[in-house]
């Protein structure tokens, strides 16, 4: 079941604003303001903290007022580009790995609110590091939540890491010291400390977090944050940063449909990079964080810039123009389809590609073609007459049987290809010139 999206993506809204401005020629500051109001609302809906939104918008506005944007024929793209770039920059630019340098064991401590996913993250991080051949020790300093220690022990078993904890009556800082000793004498490369969930308002617990830090002098102090967190994310991150000195963030539960504005808020207020993202229930569902993808997600705009880049890299300009001309004239033949498929195959699956297009990204699209089927498709098309390729509507039962025989396939295969073609053509024709225009870089 796909949950309904509550809000329109930013790209749709911006397209609306700029549609009104179309043909106006040069844009004014007021026009930009109007566009940025949409950006602002969109960010607020994505749970970006409102103070962060204000600062961010001010930054974007300054850049948007450059002559380049105002005089551009495609201001919408320019503004989106600036917003996107600024956001990627804020989210940490290029993904940053964990710092595990220096004398082993490298110490990583995980902090966070209750239920943010620290224990599961500890297991996932352990597995991730195990895969790169490191010896990992997991230490549970959570003596409060019932069975938290046992949970980490099970995750240690599953991820092939060592495990250490002490009786729940023990001071968590003492457990941390014990864990560090075990990691040192046991020749572990990395030791990961799981701490109890705590709200930043609880002084006693925050002091405890600082004592754990002092006991093990971590190289990485990581805040684990639920991607669904709302406006409070800022205060939480700030408080933890002040108390224990964060070095990075891990974002969990991004397999939810949350837009994840909390990520931006935290990156902005702490200036600390987001290092990993947790993407599912399984221990393997854990990835290096990609600021660019997160930016697109926060903007609710699909991965349009990636699409543009990939399309640019793969399509040669002339062919693209030719295709555009044909689409405008609503001509799209099987030959074009095959030519397109060849191009598209350079970029990944057709379905993926279409899903990246704003507006199409929520439609159910069933045009993906199994790579194994590719040669069969080519054989089928090669067995058609030129007329059939140009006007596939004329292909009736007897023509289908002939084509199937000629290509060594079944009539069902021919039917399937034709169905895919008609589906793709329908979709192509739904793409108005404006939509086409938005696919091209300014």
């Amino acid at each position: 079941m796909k949950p309904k999206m509550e809000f329109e993506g930013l790209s749709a809204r911006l397209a609306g604003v700029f549609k009104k401005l179309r043909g106006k020629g040069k844009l004014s500051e007021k026009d930009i303001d109007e566009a940025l109001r949409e950006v602002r609302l969109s960010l607020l809906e994505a749970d970006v903290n409102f103070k962060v939104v204000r600062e961010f918008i001010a930054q974007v506005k300054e850049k948007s007022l450059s002559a380049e944007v105002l005089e551009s024929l495609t201001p919408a793209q320019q503004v989106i580009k600036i917003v996107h770039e600024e956001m990627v920059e804020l989210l940490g630019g290029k993904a940053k790995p964990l710092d595990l340098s220096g004398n082993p064991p490298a110490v990583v401590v995980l902090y966070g609110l209750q239920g943010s996913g620290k224990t599961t993250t500890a297991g996932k991080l352990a597995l991730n590091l195990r895969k790169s051949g490191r010896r990992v020790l997991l230490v549970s300093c959570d003596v409060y939540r019932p069975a938290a220690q046992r949970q980490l022990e099970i995750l240690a078993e599953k991820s092939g890491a060592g495990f250490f904890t002490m009786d729940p009556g023990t001071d968590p800082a003492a457990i941390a010291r014990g864990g560090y000793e075990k990691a040192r004498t046991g020749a572990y490369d990395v030791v990961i400390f799981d701490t109890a969930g705590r709200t930043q308002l609880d002084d006693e617990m925050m002091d405890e977090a600082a004592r754990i830090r002092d006991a093990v002098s971590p190289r990485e102090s990581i805040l684990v944050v639920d991607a669904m967190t709302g406006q409070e994310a800022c205060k939480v991150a700030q408080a933890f940063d002040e108390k224990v000195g964060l070095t990075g963030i891990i974002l969990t539960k991004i397999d939810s449909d949350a837009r994840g504005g909390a990520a931006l808020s935290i990156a902005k207020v702490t200036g600390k990079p987001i290092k990993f993202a947790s993407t599912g229930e399984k221990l393997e569902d854990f990835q290096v964080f990609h600021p660019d993808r997160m930016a697109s997600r926060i903007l609710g705009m699909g991965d349009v810039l990636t699409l543009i880049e990939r399309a640019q890299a793969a399509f040669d300009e002339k062919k693209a123009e030719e295709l555009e001309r044909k689409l405008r004239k609503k001509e799209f033949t099987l030959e074009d389809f095959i030519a397109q498929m060849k191009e598209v195959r350079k970029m990944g699956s057709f379905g993926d590609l279409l899903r990246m297009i704003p507006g199409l990204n929520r439609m159910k699209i069933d045009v993906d073609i199994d790579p194994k089927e590719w040669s069969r498709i080519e054989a089928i098309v090669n067995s058609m007459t030129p007329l059939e390729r140009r006007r596939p509507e004329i292909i009736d039962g007897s023509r289908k049987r002939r084509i199937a025989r000629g290509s060594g396939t079944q009539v069902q295969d021919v039917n399937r290809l034709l169905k895919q073609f008609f589906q793709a053509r329908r979709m192509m024709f739904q793409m108005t010139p404006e939509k086409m225009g938005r696919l091209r870089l300014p």
Partner: protein
Amino acid sequence: MSLFDRLRSGLKRTSSSLREAVTSIFTGGRVTQEFLDELEEVLIQSDVGLKAAMALRDRIQEENKKRNLKTPEELFGVMEEMVAEILEGVSEPLRTAPSGPTVYVLVGVNGAGKTTTIGKLAERWRGQGKSVIMAAADTFRAAAQEQLAVWAKRTGSTIIAHQSGSDPGAVAFDAVRAAISRGVDLVLVDTAGRLHTKGNLMEELKKIIRVIGRELPGAPHEVILVIDGTTGQNGLNQARVFAEAAGVTGVCITKLDGSSKGGIAVAIADELGLPIKLVGVGESADDLRDFDARAFAKALFARPE
């Protein structure tokens, strides 16, 4: 401590309470267009959602036309009243079975606080001399059963658990059966945390609920969606999908002892009409409270202690 005081306590060190924010932008002592725009943004800050924020803004504008609002106090009065109306409009107490065992199923995303809420609910019923069975239907997460077992021991409840990885529907089935045959008063079914985006896991939930209903007509008497109070606008998506899939009858907002005031409750009541039935305002058992719309609305706009 009253619910209001408990809810307010988190505000004492958060410099930017909603109240302060609104006061700081209400500079001219007059409701202007500019103020209304800023008000909307400030309201969004409390996670009440864009729709409720806009409605509150409109109400302020309307009231201002009628009686010229001049002080922040008047503004808070209007907004508090409106939030209370929204919440009270769908308010409803927890249901219980007229006879035989009462069954509550707790559902929600990972880390929302389902198991802890079960522990607190059990403590409440046990305190009234009632018998409780806990069903460990979270057979997925590592040590989830152990966590529930600790709560069962603490509260003197019985726990029904199968092996890790076994069918959660079967656990619920056994628990309900046991409750009927032993004449137990309350069954609390702990389900695995699941993101609402996982269709197969939502199907699993439907099955658990179906199994319970077949075994005991009228059950479950409540399907309680547990939502972390720090959740942002995604809480709405959670509530919508869980309501559709599992027939949620009430919501419990947890972790309101943090700096978040749980504005998402307003969005959920306003846009989905789901009643908020419980709130978690701290670690101890009596920190699970019945929801009180008035106290909640007051706390949302409260002055820091």
